[in-house]
């Protein structure tokens, strides 16, 4: 449905997008992931025909974006990042106007379509309010309604959930998922759970270059590296005994003791060779020794880890302005965590995806 081939875009002498190629199949939801300023919006603007590319080609539904821009625009619905809307008219009038210029010339059909779309994005209750008076969530949905009004094959959504409250985010995600049945969707985001939650495939882009392209599941598995397992054991006097017992198992790479909770409970982080799946063996060993196994949990590498890895591999020296706006998370603690990681990167150290890092992402989904 969408073919992006060796796309390059220069702003002045500096490239914003460099040699990016990927395809999106019909009915797919492709997540476009990257830090701020990575080139997500630029790529999307080129796909929609708003910006000309410097090099490379983009085809949408067989039409060349550079040469058959109008045809492409008939097949694409676009929600820009800032959700620009006219503020002095009502959603109904807005959609009526946009419907007209998007080729819904038959008045009765257009009104019918407006009703369907307003129902779909749930803005029927504010139909006669001025857009300027609507809340951010409603505006977002009016913007989405505009993208949908001409029932395009392709939807390009630039950060569709930015600035929404958690409930609205879930609603919009559900809506986007439901749209995938009839539309091909490309959505950009820098919120990682969004990708795991909605997308069938992910493109990760950093500093204008494509750094990864796969399904969320594959990405977390393949770039996962060693498996992390966390254990809580009760029984032995000191952790060294447990460590020794576990390290004796084939496939265990490290067994690090963490500060215990007191009352004789020992916390351990174990890393194993990739794909070993040692959890049953670990459990057997501990129970076999007569100790109590209180907890045993595999910590899967989340998409966040993958993302931090692939976006830092090429250039560990993250620029400060990128770091400042890096990945605004959905809660403060999460942001602090990221800030900590950014500091580590700025110091020139490798990112803490190594065994020494405390288990942190496993439970967050």
């Amino acid at each position, binding site marked *: 449905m969408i073919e992006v081939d060796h796309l390059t875009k220069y702003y002045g002498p500096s490239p914003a997008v460099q040699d990016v190629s990927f395809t999106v199949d019909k009915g797919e939801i492709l997540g476009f992931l990257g830090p701020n300023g990575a080139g997500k919006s630029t790529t999307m*603007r080129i796909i929609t025909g*708003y910006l000309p590319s410097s090099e490379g080609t983009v085809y949408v539904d067989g039409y060349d974006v550079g040469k058959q821009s109008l045809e492409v625009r*008939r097949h694409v619905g*676009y929600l*820009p990042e800032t959700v*620009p*809307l006219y503020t*002095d008219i009502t959603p109904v009038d807005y959609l009526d106007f946009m419907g007209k*210029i998007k080729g819904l010339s038959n008045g009765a059909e257009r009104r019918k379509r407006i009703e369907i779309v307003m129902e779909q994005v749930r803005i029927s209750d504010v139909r006669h309010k001025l857009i300027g008076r609507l809340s951010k969530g409603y505006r977002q949905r009016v913007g989405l309604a*505009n993208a949908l009004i001409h029932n395009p094959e392709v939807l390009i959504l630039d950060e569709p959930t930015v600035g929404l409250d958690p409930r609205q985010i879930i609603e919009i995600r559900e809506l986007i998922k439901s749209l995938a049945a009839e539309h091909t969707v490309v959505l950009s985001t820098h919120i990682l759970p969004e990708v795991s939650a909605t997308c069938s495939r992910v493109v990760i882009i950093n500093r204008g270059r494509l750094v990864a392209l796969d399904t969320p599941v594959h990405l977390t598995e393949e770039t996962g590296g060693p498996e992390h397992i966390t254990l809580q054991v009760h029984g032995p006097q000191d952790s060294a005994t447990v460590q020794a017992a576990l390290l004796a198992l084939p496939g265990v790479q490290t067994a690090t003791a963490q500060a215990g909770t007191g009352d004789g409970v020992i916390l351990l982080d174990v890393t194993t060779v990739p794909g070993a799946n040692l959890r049953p063996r670990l459990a057997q060993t501990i129970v076999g020794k007569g100790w109590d196994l209180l907890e045993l949990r595999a910590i899967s590498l989340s998409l966040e880890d993958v993302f931090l890895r692939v976006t830092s591999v090429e250039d560990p020296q993250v620029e400060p302005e990128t770091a400042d706006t890096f990945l605004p998370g959905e809660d403060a603690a999460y942001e602090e965590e990221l800030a900590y990681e950014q500091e580590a990167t700025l110091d020139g150290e490798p990112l803490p995806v190594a065994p020494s890092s405390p288990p942190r992402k496993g439970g967050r989904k």
Partner: protein
Amino acid sequence: MRNMWAIAVKELRSFYVSPVGWVALAFWLFGVGLFFALDVVQGKQASMQSWFSTVEVLLLFLGPAVTMRLLAEEQRTGTMEVLMTSPVRDWEVVIGKYLGALIFWASMIVVTFVYPIILVLVSGATNGPDFGPIISGYLGLFLMGAAFLAIGVFTSSLSGNQVIAYIAGFIVLLTLWIIGFLTQILPAGAIANTLTALSVTSHFDDFGKGVIDLANILFYLSMVAAALFASVQVLELRRARQ
């Protein structure tokens, strides 16, 4: 064509819901009313010739006020991006918006049709006004306004800031205006003739006298075409340079 019309209608609506539209209309009605009262009281003639030549000054201020929003606002808020990723051509956007402003301008002119009616009522049927110069005067006024609005659309394309669009438009129009005065000071010759040819006022004077000259009509129309063409080019350039 259909797109253009949809955009024109939307713009026209905006004039009537925005405060700027109403302020412009109020300013216009106050100005034309004042000039009409002064002209009739002073001149004691059932003629609108002097009214036309004074009213054109109002246009200098009003033209850019009407058009300043058209392209600047959409570029500032980013709605231009939505418009330009819809299946409309750039020139359809520019001409559509221009048409909206032009229709608004026409409505402003239509309101002043009460003045010739008042002239007829006051002076009676026998020594009433000569309608020839009034009709040609109105045609000239409409054409001059059309040219001013086109220049306003052009300056509105240059910036995302309405104030800059207004000031730039005013300066361009003022320059074209001053040229007309220069021709009266300068000695007759090639320079004066060239300036007269370029002056927006000298082309208007004939209309007020009841003369409809094709050259004058073409002057204003070519000004419209040039300004709108330049606006389309500017929009494309600004987008490519983003």
